[in-house]
């Protein structure tokens, strides 16, 4: 066994130990000892094991790393979700299982079928259509109308569009880098942003726009483009502040949350209290107060995580995310294939922006917007999409090993 393999084993067992302790604690929390959390813990560990073995069997070198990192995030997320709402945890479990399957399948298939994604026109069109459909038939949930109901299951098409967007952007920009092409691309990005804006999904709109900037810069290398892009963002931000009341509310709550604590800035204030109350080592699993925090299982999961596990764990989580993103960027740099480079950079940036925006929002670093924390937050669409994107990244970086 190589030294590295040994470390992988250790990592795996550390993860198991962590999960088991957490679920044990959750089981002990109810006065007649409740065995259900233990089953969930064991179940999840089983799924991780199956996934891990599957990956090793197919000799995927070095990428058990991504698998382990993402599962750690899912794991700590699952623990928090169970602690907050048992029902949601069962559902999240299913989503994670599905996500892992998606991850493994995509890691393999993308290698071979990846080139089929070159039809950027169709993909771009599909994205816009999906978003438009959401606007027309969309159901509102938590302040934004970006949910679709099909046969009793709620999902967010905007999540799926993330995948399409990256594929379309990469395949378009790898060959078309002239200013004229950039203009066309910008038009596409703006349309996506607009459609998202109509759905009141501001956070996701910003993510798409920033990712668009990264795609353009990576493809062309001209700093003028990100400069113009950021300027457009600034102008857009100011304009939407002036026009839309709900933007004003978010922005004002960010600047001075103490003006209307029981009303408009309730979310961010409670989030700050939770983060502060945890201290460095947390208040202890189950000893915090998620009931004070709205949307605690989805957008604000980071807050309750820091309250109960402590800021040190929170920082570790951020570092884990960073490792995933940096790894993707470095493997992009090592590649010589333009479309691989673009895709890797773009997808990694998209996830990075999403992570940054929600953690930043929840800590009042930036205004709070409603996006999920990848892998950690509850949300079927979010988990599946994140794993899908991760799988694509994984698939792209394997090639570099040989």
């Amino acid at each position, binding site marked *: 066994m190589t030294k590295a393999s040994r470390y*992988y084993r250790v990592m795996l067992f550390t993860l198991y130990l962590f999960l088991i302790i957490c679920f044990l604690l959750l089981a002990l929390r109810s006065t007649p000892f409740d065995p259900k959390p233990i089953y969930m813990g064991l179940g999840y560990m089983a799924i991780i094991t199956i996934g891990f073995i599957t990956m090793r*069997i197919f000799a995927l070198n070095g990428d058990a790393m991504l698998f382990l990192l993402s599962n750690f995030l899912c794991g700590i997320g699952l623990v928090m979700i169970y602690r907050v709402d048992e029902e949601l945890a069962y559902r999240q479990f299913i989503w994670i299982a599905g996500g892992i399957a998606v991850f493994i399948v995509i890691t393999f298939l993308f290698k071979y079928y990846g080139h089929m994604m070159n039809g950027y026109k169709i993909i771009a069109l599909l994205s816009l259509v999906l978003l438009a459909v959401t606007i027309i038939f969309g159901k509102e949930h938590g302040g934004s109308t970006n949910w679709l109901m099909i046969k009793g299951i709620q999902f967010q098409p905007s999540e799926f569009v993330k995948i399409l967007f990256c594929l379309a952007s990469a395949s378009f920009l790898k060959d078309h880098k002239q200013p004229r092409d950039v203009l066309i691309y910008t038009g596409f990005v703006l349309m996506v942003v607009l459609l998202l804006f109509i759905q009141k999904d501001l956070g996701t709109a910003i993510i798409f726009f920033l990712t668009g900037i990264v795609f353009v810069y990576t493809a062309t290398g001209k700093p003028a483009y990100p400069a113009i892009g950021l300027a457009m963002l600034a102008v857009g931000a100011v304009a939407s502040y002036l026009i839309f009341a709900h933007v004003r509310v978010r922005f004002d709550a960010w600047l001075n949350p103490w003006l209307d604590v029981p009303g408009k800035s309730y979310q961010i204030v409670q989030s700050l209290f939770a983060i502060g109350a945890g201290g460095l080592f947390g*208040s202890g699993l*189950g000893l915090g107060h998620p009931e004070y925090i709205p949307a605690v299982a989805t957008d604000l999961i980071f807050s309750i995580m820091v309250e109960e596990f402590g800021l040190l*764990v929170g920082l*570790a989580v951020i570092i884990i995310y960073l490792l995933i993103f940096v790894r993707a960027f*470095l493997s992009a740099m090592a590649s010589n294939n333009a479309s691989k480079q673009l895709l890797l950079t773009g997808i990694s940036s998209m996830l990075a922006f999403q992570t940054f925006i929600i953690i930043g929002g929840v800590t009042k670093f930036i205004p709070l917007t409603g996006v999920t924390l990848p892998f950690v937050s509850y949300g079927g669409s979010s988990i599946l999409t994140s794993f899908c994107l991760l799988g694509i990244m994984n698939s792209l970086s394997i090639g570099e090993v040989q």
Partner: protein
Amino acid sequence: MYEFLAGLFKWVLASLVYSFLFDTIQIIRLTGWYGEKASACLIADDDGKTRYELKGDTVIGREGDCDIVLNNQFVSLKHAGITKNWRGFYIEDLKSSNGTRVNGRIIKKRKKLSDGDIIAFGPIKLTYRS
């Protein structure tokens, strides 16, 4: 009572998380950011200096096409192959004329390599290090 337990274990959990992080960094140090670095290699026995890094599937033989080229008349054109899977590195004889030996014994089917194994391709010996 539960408060005491939860309070106690929070230190444990935080350490586990950081241990996890530490392991990740160690793996990155060993195998590179995306697993590109070699985690095992073959060292030439005669001078102890020549190192062949083993990354994935490696073909060893006299042919110029091979990943590791051994210039010796007793070495077949395609002598042996080393494959990597989740359990480690395995060596397999590719129907060579003189056979492949691991630690003196001729191998008939795939054999798992351990640190320190001496592999002989004819007269040429290479040590496996991980």
